[in-house]
């Protein structure tokens, strides 16, 4: 703050601000449109500031036409369960692969790398058929199950655990911990930066995911936020973009707030040192 503004700094700051503006433009446009009346949106002049403030009306309209609390709840449940299961599976798995010697660990490593290469789109059809056969479409299970094992998480944690000193694990064993105890009491608390980083990736990806919910969910009771918006746009809103943008604003807000809060912890976590003796 006390730095003086010289030319180089001004150039740098303007470039950065311009870049930020480009990335933020759609979001800003959404915020603006959410506060405009129908006539205002279709007016020939393009202005970011609404002529009349229509936020309350648009939000009310959106709330009355879409069951937004259900959408948000579904989003929280689906993302939460996915994240918890992913961490519960990936942490012990990555620990075993990073720190224990067992037969087949190289083969497992190859499988993880292979898993990283296969996108969900390739397996979507067989998975859909499987869920259909089990009559499990339109359920939380169908939304969660395909993502319960994240090879990306295993890979991320594996890299992180390799850097943890072996002596720490030896000390834990000598203090009387079982292998699960080591994972729960020593590995997980020290892996917090990696878990936070992964949580951001995972929650953002699954909160915003439209592809998979669109395949397995046709009932709005289980719709995740993006799918709910799609139903809303297709069936009810028609060309009422003000209400649509207001609904979008509501469903993106939790993620933005969560990220802003987690970001601080995330940076703190990365700055946490002192793992070495």
């Amino acid at each position, binding site marked *: 703050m006390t730095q003086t503004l010289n030319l180089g700094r001004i150039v740098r700051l303007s470039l950065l601000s311009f870049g930020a503006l480009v990335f933020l433009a759609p979001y800003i446009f959404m915020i603006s449109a959410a506060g405009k009346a129908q006539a205002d949106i279709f007016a020939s002049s393009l202005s970011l500031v609404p002529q009349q403030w229509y936020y309350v009306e648009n939000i009310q309209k959106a709330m009355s036409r879409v069951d937004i609390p259900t959408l948000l709840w579904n989003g929280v449940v689906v993302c939460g369960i996915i994240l918890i299961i992913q961490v519960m599976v990936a942490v012990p798995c990555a620990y075993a692969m990073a720190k224990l010697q067992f037969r087949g660990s190289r083969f497992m490593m190859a499988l993880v790398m292979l898993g990283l290469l296969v996108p969900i789109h390739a397996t979507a059809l067989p998975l859909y058929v499987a869920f259909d056969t089990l009559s499990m479409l339109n359920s939380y299970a169908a939304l969660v199950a395909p993502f319960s094992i994240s090879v990306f998480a295993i890979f991320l944690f594996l890299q992180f655990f390799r850097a943890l000193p072996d002596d720490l694990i*030896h*000390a834990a*064993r000598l203090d009387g911990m079982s292998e699960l105890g080591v994972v729960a009491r020593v590995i997980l608390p020290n892996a917090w930066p990696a878990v936070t980083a992964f949580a951001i990736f995972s929650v953002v990806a699954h909160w915003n995911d439209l592809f998979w919910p669109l395949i397995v969910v046709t009932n709005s009771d289980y719709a995740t936020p993006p799918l709910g918006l799609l139903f809303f746009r297709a069936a009810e809103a028609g060309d009422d973009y003000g209400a649509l943008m207001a609904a979008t604003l509501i469903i993106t807000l939790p993620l933005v707030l969560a990220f802003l809060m987690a970001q601080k912890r995330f940076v703190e976590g990365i700055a946490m040192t002192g793992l070495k*003796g």
Partner: protein
Amino acid sequence: MFALRNIVKSFGSNAILQSVTVEAEAGEFIALVGPSGCGKSTLLRIAAGLDHCDSGEILLAGKPVTGLSASDRNVAMVFQSYALYPHLTAGQNIAVPLAMRELSTAQRLPIIGRFMGGSAAIRSNIQERVKDMGVSLKIDHLLDRKPGQMSGGQRQRVALARAMVRRPAVFLMDEPLSNLDANLRVHARGEIVDLHRKAGVPTLYVTHDQSEALSMADRVAVMIGGKMLQLDTPQTIYENPTHVEVARFIGQPRINLLESRLNANRLVRFGSVELVAPAAGENDTVTLGFRPEFVRLAAPGAGLSAQVERLEFLGSEIILFARLHGMGETIVVKLAPAEARTLTAGASVNLSVDPAHIMLFDGKTGARLKADVVEAPAHMKATLHG
């Protein structure tokens, strides 16, 4: 009692431990010393249960534990890196081994565990003992700090406290002082010995620093190349090494070792003495050994003549490096500063070796030979028949 018997361990075709045996009496402090790569740390890890031996037997408190995992053996270890849990405070670190052993699985659960029957009493008892341990190691003011906020010496104390807070069957220490600065190290030596005496638990202490081993241990085990060469009191190890490698490794400055050959009568002349090797054995190469403090300056014309190569002033003593005439070997002599005052590099000196302290080793196997030392005939003085 604690014992490691005939421990064999190899990685692939690389034999790390070749039938090593160490037995400790109750309350004994044994230092395992050897150059790096001699297998001493591997032996310690096998004792801890962090590694498994190919064959051999491990007894802790008189009970065989060979197949047991580390968490089921009642051992405590101090690591070279200290291995403190970075996410816990010093006090919590010290409490971990107590909590793991004294609270049941249900009582250890977060939040719920606090309401399990009996948990509160055990927890407050643990807190009490952690505090006592902190006071006795003078770290009670640090118990709320995390390892990242402590200095190396403070971390070392916390690691020591974590190992000593319960009564294990054996303490294992893997070079716990090697990350401290020199002053602190000497101070910490005395403290560890005191703590060990108070606790009375057998201790196996691994170090590559021979002065640490000699000064701290009741008995010193010298390991070289995966073999236990000698296990005895520090004094015996120093004065009466049974193997040339032990003699070479122990002692600062190093022992003087001279290669030589026995003549037909199985004797070797050195200075004014003759050493007679035992009759048995066909090998005729031997190694003569004598420590630097048993070499004295002799009158001109007497003893071995040599040329001063270098002098090192160490305050209370002077180390003299002298090249023997005729042999070309350099020997090391430890002198009092008063004796060496007149010496300068390049000067000629005459040296005599105390005959009672010359040792003879087999040139091939390195084993100590029982030699008879006799005064040589006068005309043979000052020669060494090589």
